[in-house]
């Protein structure tokens, strides 16, 4: 049964992509409904995988030679992420029915979304490193195509190509790592690698570990590769929700979590992971605080929360990072879709032109607030439980000063979230906008996510069993039920954290009284608006490359005489090398 389900979970979305594309853009209604049906079917199939979860190879397609066997394993981590990809994918597509109504080239849109969903499922279910890289690059392709969906908008195209290039640069780390595994173990099979990791030469294992870290950091928009995610917000909001919040950006965290047992003993690797996570969390939180673009705030927030997950892996608590991934996928998708509803209705992304939207879109306001509470870490929402667990884990598994920084970031998170909610939904409208109510498909997508944000943490025990030793033999994740969670969380550090979070929210409401302080921090605001120099680095790299290319152009003189000189010079140089070499 499991082999068929695995094949279907990738095959159904891909078949759907083909069908929606071939149906043609003149049958818009068919395209919407077919996309929904195919993604829903994929979601059902993914959920059906749960009972059969195990660490055995579920599906094997022998290919041979250097390409190995295309093998798939339906274990806990894979099934969990497949469910997220397909279910949230389905909700994003339902949302798109209203958001993308009447758009041109819808076939291309849905085809890429479905292609992406299938690729994401494939990425987490495969146990062949070559296939991990293949699916990794396919998700990058889909992400680029969807960010740059509106090809006529140069900002969108630039954002898409930027995302493609930056994530692919990190991807080279994954490529070299996967090839090293092949070179050292003779196969690209992940299970073989995980069991043999201890006996591999230490220096090459370190190259592998840091290569994978680079790939993960680029994919999850972590320091120092975080610049592509905010620019990816040119994508339609359902895409931001699905790809850039709930699924693709998790691929980096998945990579680190999957290979943690192999790398945990590499010197300085865990420290590097922690630092990457903390820096991302901190820098992004500050940038979220200074941005006025609603989607950019959420993008920075995503970078920040992913930083928490990465930090958790660094401290050795892979389960807590996956649990936060679970919470974050739900509440961040909720926030992005809610933001999408607002933007679609009001017609702008600039929060300075909003205000009082809650009066026109009450349901959206309430679900957004639920998402915001989850993001800030307010009990009893899912974000509270998972964030506290990470902080507890950080206290036990990492240096105290990093823990303190993460605590402060929790406060900053609450601050920028309160700011965001207030600026958009409350107060008086600051511009003449015309808000039309949110469509039914949008609400159908939003409400289940809000409900999930309220209750999904109740399943923590089941979740830990899914990821337990039966399916993930190398990770040693112990059973962790509700009682254990309550025991962990109801403690002094949590109280301190709650105080910090409360302080964050309070700071927003006291902002008028604190004007002196905010003026004093003007330089930090300036640095944050300039993204702490990272945009400058990006632009510098691009312009240097182009300048070098222009310089190289001069060698193509177009004059035959010089061309022949080139040939003669080559002979002379090779001759010289030959003589000197001898």
């Amino acid at each position, binding site marked *: 049964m499991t082999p068929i389900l695995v094949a279907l979970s990738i095959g159904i979305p891909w078949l759907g992509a083909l069908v929606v594309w071939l149906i043609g853009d003149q049958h818009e209604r068919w395209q919407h409904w077919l996309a929904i049906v195919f993604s829903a079917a994929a979601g059902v199939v993914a959920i059906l995988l749960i009972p059969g979860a195990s660490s055995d190879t579920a599906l094997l397609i022998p290919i041979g030679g250097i*390409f190995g066997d295309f093998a798939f394993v339906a274990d806990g981590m894979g099934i969990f992420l497949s469910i997220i990809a397909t279910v949230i994918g389905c909700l994003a597509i339902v949302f798109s029915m209203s958001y993308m109504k009447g758009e041109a080239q819808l076939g291309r849109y849905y085809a890429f979304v479905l292609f992406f969903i299938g690729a994401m499922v494939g990425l987490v279910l495969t146990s062949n490193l*070559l296939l991990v*890289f293949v699916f990794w690059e396919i998700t990058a392709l889909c992400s680029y195509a969807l960010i740059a969906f509106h090809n006529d908008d140069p900002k969108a195209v630039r954002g898409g190509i930027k995302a493609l290039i930056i994530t692919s640069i990190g*991807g080279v780390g994954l490529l070299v790592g996967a090839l090293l595994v092949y070179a050292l173990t003779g196969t690209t099979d992940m299970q073989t690698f995980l069991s043999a990791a201890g006996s591999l030469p230490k220096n090459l294992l370190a190259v592998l570990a840091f290569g994978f870290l680079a790939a993960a950091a680029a994919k999850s928009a972590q320091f120092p590769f975080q610049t592509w995610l905010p620019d990816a917000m040119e994508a339609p909001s359902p895409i931001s929700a699905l790809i850039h919040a709930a699924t693709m950006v998790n691929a980096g965290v998945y990579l680190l979590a999957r290979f943690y047992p192999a790398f945990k003993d590499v010197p300085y690797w865990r420290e590097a992971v922690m630092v990457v996570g903390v820096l991302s969390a901190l820098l992004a939180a500050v940038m979220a605080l200074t941005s006025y673009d609603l989607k950019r705030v959420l993008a920075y927030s995503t970078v920040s929360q992913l930083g928490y997950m990465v930090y958790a892996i660094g401290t050795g608590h892979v389960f807590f990072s996956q649990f936060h991934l679970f919470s974050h996928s739900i509440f961040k998708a909720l926030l992005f879709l809610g933001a999408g509803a607002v933007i679609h209705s009001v017609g702008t992304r600039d929060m300075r032109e909003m205000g009082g939207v809650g009066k026109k879109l009450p349901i959206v306001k309430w679900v957004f607030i639920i998402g915001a509470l989850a993001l800030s870490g307010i009990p009893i929402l899912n974000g509270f439980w998972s964030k506290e667990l990470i902080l507890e884990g950080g206290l036990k598994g990492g240096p105290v000063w990093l823990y303190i920084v993460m605590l402060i970031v929790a406060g900053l998170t609450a601050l920028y979230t309160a700011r965001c909610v207030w600026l958009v939904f409350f107060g008086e409208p600051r511009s003449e906008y015309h808000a039309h109510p949110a469509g039914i498909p949008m609400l159908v997508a939003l409400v289940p996510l809000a409900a999930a944000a309220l209750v999904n943490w109740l399943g923590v025990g089941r979740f830990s069993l899914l990821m337990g030793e039966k399916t993930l033999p190398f990770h040693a994740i112990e059973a962790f039920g509700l009682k254990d969670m309550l025991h962990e969380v109801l403690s002094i550090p949590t109280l301190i954290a709650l105080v910090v979070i409360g302080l964050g929210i309070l700071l927003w409401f006291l902002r008028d009284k604190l004007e002196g302080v905010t003026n004093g921090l003007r330089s930090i605001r300036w640095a944050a608006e300039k993204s702490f120099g990272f945009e400058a680095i990006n632009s510098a790299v691009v312009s240097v490359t182009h300048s070098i290319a222009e310089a190289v*152009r001069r*060698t193509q003189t177009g004059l035959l005489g010089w061309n022949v000189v080139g*040939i003669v010079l*080559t002979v002379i140089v*090779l001759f010289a090398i*030959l003589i000197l070499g001898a």
Partner: protein
Amino acid sequence: MDPMIYFYILVGLPLVASPIVYLTGRLSIRRGGVLGISLARALTIFFLLVEMGLLALVLQSAIQTGSVYMAVGEVTLLFDGIGFLMAAVVLVLGLMVALFSVPYMTDERNEEKFFALLLITIGSIIGLVMSFDLFNLWVWFEVMAISTYFLVAFYNEQSASLEAGVKYLVQSAVGSALVLFGIAILFAQTGTTDMQSIWMLTPETGKLSALGGMLLIVGFGVKTAIVPLHTWLPDAHSQAPSGISAMLSGIVIEAGMVAMLRSLSLMGKITVPWGAVLLGFGCLNILVGNLMALRQKQVKRLLAYSSVAQVGYMLLGFGFSLQFSLMDGASGGFFHLITHAMMKGLAFLAAGALLYALYLSKGEHSPLMIDDLNGASRKYPLVAFALSAAVLGLGGLPPFAGFMSKWQILAAGVETQNTLMIIIVIFAGLNSVLSLAYYAPIVNHMYRREVSSAVEAGNRIPWLMVVPLVIFTLAIVIVGVWPSSMIFITQNAGYSLLYTFFN
């Protein structure tokens, strides 16, 4: 039937068919009407199909009897793995180009010469890859070069085409002269031009022979477009008729590379790091090709520089294999040869289809600019999709074939477990990412909603031009998801290379 007969016909048929096709085509000129030229086109396609059948028969007898060869006096032609691979690629690509060129070259001046020249090119490449005698290799090489001179400068009323043709001719001639010097040196040293004999007779410290080998690398290297000998390529590949651009990028420069590899394999015993030389040129090609392509605004010129970069990847694969005796490197290099022929062939044919629709069918000889592609997907969806698939495949993105071949080459590099090689692998990987910076915008331009004025006024694309595009698109997706479909061919070719080089 004696299997050797099939081999004789395989090698000789295109050269016999070419004048027949030419004369048949002339009938239209002399008598008027389209019968002659239509017959010429049909004959071309017929002969190519016959060649493919012959190739299959030769392969079958090679598998059964072990060796297929042809000896004319002292000159031997041998059918080995490399020969089969190149013959298969040139015939498939040639057939697709012939089909594509039927509507493309309709009503052009000198049309009747086009198909004849195409057949000679294909025939000479088949002969080239089968020859195991240095001088014979040079003769086939020259025949290929001469036929391509005319094809590059085909639009002999356009000054740009003439310029491209002249530069190509002169530089190619310089290369050929160097090759002759190299052959002369080797002949002087060993007294024979038979490759296998030269291998055995060359001592380990043959200084002069090494010089001869180096001259052969540079001489054949001009045709292979290794940097800095590549300067003729952007002009030639962009000015030639699009089907010929596909042939040039897809198989002619690779034929030069095979000639170079065959001559290198004579030097196997000499203690000169030939593999390292290939690696050095490979890295240079990849970097220069990518940087130059980044600045191009003409589609065909961009694709031409892309070929320079892709040849670099093949050189890396062969360099790894010759320096470290790795099968994967040679197999990967040949796999990349196949996938590149498919993808670059598809790219040039798709760009050619658009060039035809937007300019050529109206009699204009303007180049196809990237901005002309705006909104092309709205009017020409299939062609736009084909070009997108080709271009993204060339950038190394799955699920297209280019990814799998690059994977194999880079795997070979990492297999060496040598730090410098791994740095080269990282360099190649990063360059692959860089190449996306010029491939991806092409796709973006085509899928805009706002249509360029050229597309707005463009004519329809004949269905016969679209058929090869569809075939190639399917092929690159199938090979991309089923890479081992080509393993039989590439392993044999890799084995042949290593066998001739090392023993």
